[in-house]
């Protein structure tokens, strides 16, 4: 027979006095009351407050993937939340919501940005491109070359960071074509015409975190498109 294992936490738990049925009743009632109060309060600062103060909402027209949509949004709405919650474009993902992971990457006038730190109101007037806007049409034959490369090179595992990775990589190729530099360009002494080596690709994709660790295949996908597009020597 094995000795029963008792963890430190279980010991602490066992040392707690056993609650009486009354105590359980009280704590359950308290919990329910508190929960009701929280759910009521949760709607107040955002929706109800904003509705009673018209200046806290704003009519906003967003041009996403070539189509303009008019919305009335709380001024606090980020571009990420407007895309996902109001325009039902859920391809763009919310990871950290603080500009640290890159899952929310979209293109604003062709430049990659973190949509979680961009206010929807501030994005008015810009051409917004999301993962849904990259393919040329329906079906696997119409994928953007970067989407096709991620499929071919298996550049993902769970897929959650993938829309952000692909939007970021599309911008990377565009930046490389324009000769834009990275710190690797300086360290490799290649500041006149940067060459998209694996080191360059890793540095330029560093704003997109992949918790599954699919990095080798992500680099392979980007490298393949970089070669096709002539930005890797």
């Amino acid at each position, binding site marked *: 027979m094995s000795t029963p294992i008792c963890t430190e936490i279980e010991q602490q738990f066992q040392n707690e006095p056993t609650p009486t049925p009354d105590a359980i009743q009280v704590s359950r009632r308290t919990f329910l009351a508190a929960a009701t109060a929280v759910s009521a309060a949760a709607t107040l600062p955002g929706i109800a407050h904003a509705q009673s103060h018209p200046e806290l909402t704003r009519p906003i027209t967003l041009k996403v993937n070539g189509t303009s949509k008019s919305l009335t949004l709380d001024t606090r709405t980020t571009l990420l939340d407007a895309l996902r919650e109001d325009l039902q474009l859920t391809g763009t993902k919310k990871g950290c919501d603080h500009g640290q992971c890159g899952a929310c990457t979209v293109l604003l006038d062709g430049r990659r940005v973190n949509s979680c730190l961009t206010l929807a109101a501030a994005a008015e007037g810009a051409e917004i491109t999301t993962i849904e806007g990259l393919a040329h049409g329906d079906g696997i034959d119409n994928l953007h070359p970067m989407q096709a490369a991620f499929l071919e090179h298996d550049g993902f595992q769970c897929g959650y960071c993938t829309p952000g990775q692909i939007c970021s990589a599309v911008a990377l190729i565009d930046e490389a074509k324009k000769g834009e*530099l*990275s710190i690797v360009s*300086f360290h490799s*002494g290649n500041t006149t015409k940067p060459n998209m080596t694996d080191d360059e690709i890793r540095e330029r994709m560093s704003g997109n975190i992949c918790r599954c660790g699919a990095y080798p295949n992500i680099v392979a996908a980007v490298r393949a498109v970089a070669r096709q597009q002539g930005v890797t020597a």
Partner: protein
Amino acid sequence: MNPFTYERATAPDAAIHSGTAPSTAFLAGGTNLIDLMKYGVEHFTTLVDINHIGLADVTSTPDGGVSIGALVRNSDLADHKLIVSQYPLLSQALLSGASPQLRNMATTGGNLLQRTRCYYFTDIAFPACNKRVPGSGCAAIKGYNRIHAILGQTDHGSTSAESCIATNPSDMCVAMSALGATVQVQGPKGKRSIPFGDFHRLPGKDPALDTTLRPDELILAVTLPPAKFSGNSYYLKSRDRNSYAFALISVAAGLELSGTTIKSAGLALGGVALKPWRSPEAEHALIGQPAIADTFRKAATLALAGAHGYEHNTFKIEMAKQGIVRALTVAAAGGTGVSA
């Protein structure tokens, strides 16, 4: 995030007029402001979007320097031909910071106003932070202080209302400090120029304030004097991972050489103090000396004089000294084509 009104300004004067209202912040790239508002650290009730007021150009100045508009994005500044060719130290510093996405958003003026990444400042669950809640103390002094200051901090104990050991997180500002930049600002009463060393503050007796910019002033531009270090400069950044992380220490080093003798030098450290830490003593000690390791080691010792570390960051003192020697060595050798 607290509710706020949003308005767009279309010219600097209009923005400054709107900016005089209480609890108003200018919104540029938003990469730090929106982040801190989400965390409940900042609570402005009006945001004035200044992304459409101009001030987005890099231009040559009559004295042979450059003027960088406050709304020039970090990515555009790093890649601007004038900066890459004349001030590669600044390009390197910019490209060492954040990610491509963030650099596309972040502006020159916003980068100057970046707030510290001290964990006890950015997480409102911690009650003690003199910068966030004046008078509440400094949790970092006895806390996890790996990223904290070793120079210029105020430490009268963790319960003192004056204590603060936070650091400035910017890379761009370290290079601008070494390059001798000037910040051009405008408020309701007119324009003024702030030497770079006077723009950011040390905590002193009032850790709540990061800069000497007045609440109603708008940053218009940063001007750089004519380039002296274009052929011999290097930005070295040491951090916990190779990219997309804040500096443990960084070094901006620029040398003006005559043969192998140093005519003038610019030297500033990042990650060590609440402001970019320019060291006039170390710069002075370099002048007239041969550009060799022994000279650099003497400068490093002077730059770190008076440094004081804590439980988790004392390593920074030696790291900064070695970083200075390394950065000056690479700068003397031409500053490019070398991996740090």
